């Protein structure tokens, strides 16, 4: 009986707190409303743009999605635009959410530009763009415009990370003492294949030209873990992959995955006086975990490209395009100035640093192109003839890893 009374009391308490919450609510409302109207009041001349950005992962993943979220915020700050962000749109985190549902609501809130930031969204973006012809859609990393599949209101954007991966590979080759570099890859597709290939070609170039060593002696292996980040029981454990690379003689570990295992493990081994270094990926601050063991980090910065796109949509001057944006070599470490960049790490020796600067200057001037033939594929067939340089398509759609890289191509 006492239990029943207790329950009743508890229920009354809850109902009471519910009422309290309901009463408190109207008080909270007016404080919010003026804040939202303020920017409009300040700049009555320009109609502020409202744009939506859909992320595949969380906005604080220290990797791919965070770079997009920061780029979106950059646009909001610099253009005075209203940003509607939606994170973690994937069937595992949100089985009930769909791209069309999210986009419909963004548009009902006034969005005239929608950016979907993963190749996971490529097909759905094309479909939803067709049903909203008045709204501009941008799919980052996709190629629908290039292949001619895109409707008139759909554009693509991607940073030329390949060049930054070549720099990363060069830094690795300039540092390795054992002549063995390990690359922790995510899953295998065109994008990841061409990034590994670029890293290898950069490494090969620098091993040969700056260190005067035979590139045939350079050992460059990739282990694909199976996804962009570790999923216990599903992917290989990147921590183990990195440890395994080090235990079998690799002294530079490059990361191609979204998370930070490479620099974490290498940092620990480095702290235990082992001579190992790492090149992390994606996030500009990735070296901070273990600065002394870090050779540098190639990163994406979506702010400048998104700002230009948003500006053109706001001005009504947007033209459909497939943008594969090269780095701004005059400001390689400044995320407000370049779409892809490179920040050198403390782990680079002075000598290596000098050679790397020379390499970067060569890339900037166009004197050096690591995609210059002869380049053979893993099966031995010729891909780029001697003296020729690869076209954008040949790089984008690289069918196999180049000869000299150990590890599966598909």
């Amino acid at each position, binding site marked *: 009986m006492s239990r029943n009374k207790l329950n009743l009391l508890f229920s009354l308490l809850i109902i009471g*707190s519910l009422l309290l919450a309901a009463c408190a*609510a109207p008080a909270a409302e007016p404080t*919010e409303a003026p804040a939202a109207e303020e920017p409009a009041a300040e700049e009555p001349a320009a109609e502020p743009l409202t744009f939506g950005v859909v992320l595949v992962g969380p906005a604080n993943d220290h990797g791919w999605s965070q770079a997009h979220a920061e780029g979106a915020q950059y646009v909001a700050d610099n253009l005075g635009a209203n940003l509607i962000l*939606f994170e973690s749109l994937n069937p595992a985190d949100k*089985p009930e959410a769909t791209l069309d549902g999210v986009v419909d*609501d963004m548009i009902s809130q006034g969005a005239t530009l929608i950016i979907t930031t993963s190749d996971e969204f490529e097909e759905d973006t094309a479909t939803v763009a067709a049903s909203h012809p008045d709204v501009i859609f941008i799919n980052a990393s996709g190629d629908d415009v290039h292949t001619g599949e895109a409707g008139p209101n759909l554009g693509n954007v991607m940073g030329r990370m390949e060049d930054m991966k070549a720099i990363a590979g060069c830094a690795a080759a300039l540092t390795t003492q054992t002549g063995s570099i390990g690359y922790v890859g995510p899953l295998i597709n065109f994008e990841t294949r061409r990034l590994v290939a670029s890293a290898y070609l950069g490494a090969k170039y620098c091993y040969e030209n700056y260190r005067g060593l035979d590139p045939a002696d350079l050992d460059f292996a990739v282990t694909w873990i199976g996804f962009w980040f570790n999923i216990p029981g599903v992917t290989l454990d990147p921590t183990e992959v990195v440890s395994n690379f080090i235990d079998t003689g690799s002294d530079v570990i490059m990361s191609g995955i979204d998370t930070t295992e490479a620099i974490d493990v290498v940092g620990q081994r480095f702290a235990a006086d082992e001579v190992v270094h790492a090149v992390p990926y994606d996030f500009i601050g990735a070296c901070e975990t273990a600065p002394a063991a870090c050779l540098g980090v190639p990163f994406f910065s979506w702010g400048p490209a998104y700002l230009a796109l948003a500006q053109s949509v706001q001005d009504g001057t947007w033209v459909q395009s497939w943008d594969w944006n090269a780095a701004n070599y005059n400001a390689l470490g400044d995320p407000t100035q370049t779409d892809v960049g490179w920040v050198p790490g403390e782990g680079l020796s002075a000598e290596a640093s000098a050679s790397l600067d020379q390499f970067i200057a060569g890339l900037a001037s166009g004197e050096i192109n690591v995609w210059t033939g002869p380049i053979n594929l893993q099966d031995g067939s010729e891909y780029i003839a001697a003296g020729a340089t690869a076209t954008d398509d040949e790089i984008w759609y690289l069918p196999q890893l180049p000869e000299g890289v150990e590890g599966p191509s598909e």
Partner: protein
Amino acid sequence: MRPGWLDRIWPLLPVLAALAFTSVLLLLFKASPVVAFSAMLEGAFGSSERILNVIAFWIPLLLCAAGLLITFQAGLWNIGIEGQIILGSIGATWVALSLELAAPLQITLEILAAMAGGALWAGIAGWLKTRGGVHEIFGGLALNNLAIILTNYLISGPWQPPEGGSFRGTVPFGEHALLPLFDGSRFSPLALILAGTAFSIVMIALRNSTWGLKLKALGRNSRSAFLLGVSSNREAVLAMMFCGALAGLGGAVRVLSWFDSLRQSISGGIGYLALLVVMLAAYRVLWVPFVAFFFSAVLNGAIVLQLRTQLHSSLGDILTGVMVLFVLLLGDPIRLRGLRRAKDDG
């Protein structure tokens, strides 16, 4: 002790409590609960598309919850339901990718393959329990992981799209292989009919069948049930397989109407959600469809909540999770079932 008004409205209390709790949470984040909840309402019921979406998400949830009513009745914790949904999706996909028949025949075969896949996976868990002495929770969790690995292998291996595996999923199935959809939505009337039928069968089985009685005996006390002549092993495996078949059907609905292909994480936790639904309904059959619908509405509403308030995206999950927590705090289902029995007997 006779059940009073308190017993009747009991399942509503956790809902109210969770709403109150979430309101306080919102106030702590300086967000208005009124704005938040009205955004959720709009997200769930603001337009006909949204309502159809809520229904479309509700169908597989209802199928799984209906299956779980059977296993719970038999005293089994079918945690492996996630894997059973996935195996259902794989079964349907296998038929969708390998056969090309007229739509009615094709869809029938897909559904049968899905139910067989789910039943098979559940049967393994049941067999492990009865023959191997592996508790169905542990067996189920292991089988869930295996199902995920199997999906990943299939979509990145034998069933990968011609342009290369991106881990996203298989190629979209042909029109003839997909469930007919209502007016460009993801809602399939056929799926709703199937779910309604399945739920009615479960209701009849539990209330008016000897099998239901056997399961009840098994759930209350498997040893005395055995002594009374109920083959507890056989009934346990059957209950698991029945639930697995319904979960598999739910998986078919996911691939054949919500998506148009087999995707990574196709179940997305719907099975776990269904466990929560049945617990929140305090194992009462008639409450299950409403609670499941409520969950679907809350989760769909939470999408718009995130878009409008830019608050953390897990608010919907927090709300549903807190509700179940309050059920466990406020209501003791066994006591409730005791009350029900008293009522039935009286």
